[in-house]
């Protein structure tokens, strides 16, 4: 997957991460969003059976979008860890948030609901993993 050209226009800076470095930590506060320009990122969630990889993202995927779009708070729901060397593009969160806020109420409701469901489904899956 390549990075969508419109998405490239939102990038304000590039950040590099070495293998296994933590990009986002579960439970921390923050709502900035990255797009992966190069490399892979593992999304991990804490469970009673240890850390569980719930997704592996690659070029063109977003990292950290859940905290931005959910309505409740901006606590990170999962950790993002570099899987090999990674180059990320930090997105212009002011512009992104403005555009998001400008969406019709029903659209916003629809998408934030989707994110909320995702958060709950992830939590449920994580809760079910024991040992």
């Amino acid at each position, binding site marked *: 997957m390549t990075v969508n050209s419109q998405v490239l226009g939102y990038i304000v800076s590039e950040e590099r991460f070495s293998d296994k470095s933590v990009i986002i930590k579960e439970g921390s506060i923050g709502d900035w969003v990255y797009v992966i320009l190069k490399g892979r990122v593992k999304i991990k969630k804490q469970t009673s059976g240890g850390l569980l990889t719930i997704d592996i993202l690659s070029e063109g995927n977003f990292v950290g979008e859940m905290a931005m779009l959910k309505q409740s708070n901006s606590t990170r729901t999962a950790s993002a860890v570099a899987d090999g060397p990674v180059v990320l593009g930090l997105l212009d969160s002011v512009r992104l948030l403005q555009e998001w806020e400008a969406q019709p109420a029903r659209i916003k409701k*629809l998408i934030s609901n989707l994110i909320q469901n995702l958060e709950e*489904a992830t939590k449920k899956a994580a809760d079910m993993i024991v040992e």
Partner: protein
Amino acid sequence: MTKTKGKIPPVVTLNYSKTDLIIKEGDYGVSIYEVISGKVGIFVESGGAEIRVAILGPGMIVGEMAFISGNTSTRSASARALENCCLEVWHPAMLLDAYKQMPDILRLIAGQALKLIVRMNKMVVGLSLKQEQLQDSQTQKLSDQRDDNRKFYRKMVSLECVFRPVNSPEDLELPGRIRDISKRGLGMTVKTSRLFNYILIPGDELFISTYFVPDQTVNMTAKIIWLKKGETDGAISLGMVLTHMDPDDRKRLGFFLMP
């Protein structure tokens, strides 16, 4: 794809009774629902079982996944009223123009969330089935901790039933009472005074007939895993695992077990 030119249907409010199906997995559907009151359960079917993946309450949206995926795929899960519900129905035409005008980046983010949610739901279903199997292989052990482990899978009931050992004459009807039931097994109590000369031991298979709704007999075959004397005199409790059930009866059981 829905035509957006012309009249956009108005918002409609619909009422559903407890256990009503709102959306059926596998169907093509375009409507989006907002829960106004009541609770809606989201279920995914797997191997003949319905696994609940979410509960949605007032203010939450049902059916948005098909819309975000472009209405090209079928419904990925069923939605069922868990109690009497009032839902507002949105025709997707109301949202389609706005969705199309949305910046690509927001649509891409929504698409990524959608993909992950489908995967998480699959994981929940897989884990649910695995846990259920695990529980059944430990029927005896788990029966003591039922409250902790079986909230969802095992329904506590008090159902009259008749049964007979599989090798006994077909017209034999021994009375029993089903105390709990899941998709994999059941617990039953029997009065020893009503067993005539029959002796039950673990390993025996029984034909059991009961009904979940009046006038609809459900038949099953189950094997006794454990047996113990009941608290009251002259009664025994049986722990059993289902060994056979016709698809229709299995479906009835599935609906019966719906929370």
